[in-house]
């Protein structure tokens, strides 16, 4: 065993040691740097419009839909699968929700919009079981199952109303889309921000105390304080920006938009699911070594099916936000958004080789993708140019992933 202890960090620089002690993924840190560079660059290119409160508010709302689906895509890709159908699934669920809400149920009934959301979520579960079952129990590659699903569910979205756009949606429901009144105001935003910072402080303290109690190695105190300060600054900075974008013709700040709150809730739930539950542990184990997972007694097929069910529910949540924001259901909702979602997950450090990836990383990836798209709109680029750039960004992201994986060997 003597030879194994030679690779200590004697020759590593101080910087490398700090990074390692902080347990921040170097890749994550790299992405944050990339994001900052992109933001500064785009801000200069757009003459200061990009980093205005108004644009950042819109960017946050735009990121929600892709971000929510990307959290599920992380689990799918970590488990060595892929889901090409998310855009179409979101489309068909959105159409069903809009159709039920507008054409079938009385539009202004108080129970209408909650019931349609439940219906949409149920449809998401059923689609997840369908695709998950074929992938897990029938051994059809997820690539094929979801490629078929991509076509079939897009057709389904058309069939719901024969392609007709359904509008307008229920007034309360529209708030979920983050429109003019779709935010929680400055006071609540500040309260939430303070609560979030307190929770971060508490959980960091708890984690540290627990390691001390068990006598495990701990991170240096100063480093923990710096990390806390950075997180708190990001939270308060975000609240400040959202509060300083005013409603039209008034000086009333908007505060955090509802879709962003939904995204934050999804990120928290999905992060906990992937980090602290048996299920999450199994997803990563399956991705790291499917055979080992099976030999360890993990029911790989069941876990795989659950992953697709979760993806279906997340598509339903994304469909709710999209229909509420558009104030309509159209059968083109979510067209090609599977690419943005997959790109967000991969840019966010989810490895196509499986077994590695994080939910917060995917959100960062979603922000990067949306920032580029948003800035191109600001710069007056047409949809053709945007598609070219997004496609190239995806290829470069995978290239980077491959190079990173090779460099580790």
């Amino acid at each position, binding site marked *: *065993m*003597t*030879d*194994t*202890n030679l690779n200590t960090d004697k020759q590593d620089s101080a910087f490398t040691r700090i990074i390692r002690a902080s347990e921040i993924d170097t890749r994550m840190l790299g992405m944050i740097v990339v994001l900052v560079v992109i933001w500064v660059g785009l801000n200069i290119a757009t003459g200061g419009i990009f980093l205005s409160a108004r644009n950042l508010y819109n960017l946050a709302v735009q990121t929600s839909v892709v971000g929510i689906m990307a959290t599920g895509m992380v689990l799918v890709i970590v488990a060595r699968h892929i889901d090409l159908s998310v855009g179409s699934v979101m489309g068909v669920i959105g159409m069903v929700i809009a159709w039920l809400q507008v054409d079938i149920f009385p539009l202004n009934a108080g129970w209408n919009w909650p019931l349609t959301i439940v219906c949409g979520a149920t449809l998401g579960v059923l689609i997840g079981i369908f695709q998950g079952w074929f992938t897990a129990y029938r051994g059809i590659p997820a690539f094929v199952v979801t490629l078929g699903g991509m076509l079939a569910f897009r057709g389904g979205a058309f069939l719901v109303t024969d392609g007709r756009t359904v509008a307008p949606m229920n007034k309360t429901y529209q708030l979920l889309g983050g429109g003019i009144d779709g935010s929680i105001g400055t006071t609540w935003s500040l309260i939430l921000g303070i609560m979030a910072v307190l929770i971060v402080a508490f959980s960091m303290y708890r984690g540290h105390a*627990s*390691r001390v109690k*068990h006598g*495990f190695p701990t991170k240096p105190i100063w480093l923990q304080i710096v990390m806390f300060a950075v997180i708190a600054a990001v939270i308060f900075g975000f609240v400040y920006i959202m509060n300083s974008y005013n409603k039209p013709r008034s000086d009333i700040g908007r505060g955090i938009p509802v879709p962003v709150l939904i995204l934050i809730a999804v990120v928290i739930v999905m992060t906990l699911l992937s980090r*602290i*539950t*048996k299920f999450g*542990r199994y997803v*990563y*184990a399956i*991705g*790291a*070594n499917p*055979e*080992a*997972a*099976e*030999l*360890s*007694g*993990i029911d790989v097929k069941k876990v795989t099916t659950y992953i697709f069910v979760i993806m279906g529910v997340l598509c339903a949540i994304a469909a709710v936000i999209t229909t509420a924001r558009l104030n309509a259901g159209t059968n083109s909702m979510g067209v090609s958004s599977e690419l943005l979602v997959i790109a967000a997950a991969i840019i966010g450090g989810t490895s196509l080789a499986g*077994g*590695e990836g994080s939910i917060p990383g995917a959100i960062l990836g979603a922000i990067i993708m949306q920032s580029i798209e948003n800035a191109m709109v600001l710069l007056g680029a047409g949809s053709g140019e945007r598609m070219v750039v997004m496609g190239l960004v995806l290829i470069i992201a995978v290239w980077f992933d491959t190079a990173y994986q090779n460099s580790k060997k």
Partner: protein
Amino acid sequence: MTDKKTPLIEMKNISKRFGGVHAVENVSINLYPGEVVGILGHNGAGKSTLMKMLSGAIEIDEGEIIVNGEKANIRNPRESRAYGIETIYQTLALADTLDASANLFLGREITNAFGVLNEAQMELETRKVMKTLNPNFTNITDPVNSMSGGQRQVVAIGRAIYFNAKTLVMDEPTAALGPAETTMVKDLTLRLKAEGIGIFLISHDMGDVFELCDRVMVMKNGKDVGKFNIEDVTRDDILSLIIGGQLPEGWQPRSKK
């Protein structure tokens, strides 16, 4: 060792076909508590396949497994583990991107009442187990793909012994190890044997076999070509069985000489 005690494991008339190939054909073998039985043979002789049926990784076509005198129904790794059978696979079967503690408890995590992983408890237990196996092993929280072959082997062994195994299957446990680590695995094997654990050992290393085993079974082309007490055979006898499928001419049990 082969007195009238109930065997820990009896594998009776086990057969397994892959397509037209008889990977294992009508093989029977017993294992008693506190005994090390070597399973020997060429690559492709059916040793690993036989053991994988005991571990539940492969389903049995014909034959039965009896554990402690009762017929056992082993169809998957979970059921095998439930009978107290733990396996150290040749490939180690580790989830490479997870750390030592996650691998040790994989499939059997410690959770609280809400089904939430108790990471601290698992890390604590892992540190204890690893300390008994190798006091130098401290990088418990690193992913196992950043560890040396020896450390990975220690994780795989730790996983097998932590859950109070009664039967241990070791498939080439020292093949990838250096001399110091090999000694560690041998010492451990003898310690577990002394604790009354029954061990099936698949090995190519004749040194290991003669040092550790009480009995050996040699397999060739899926068939059992001989079972012996270790003191009745020499290396040359075993090599003759492995290569030719039969004993040298005029063989007699060596202990009778």
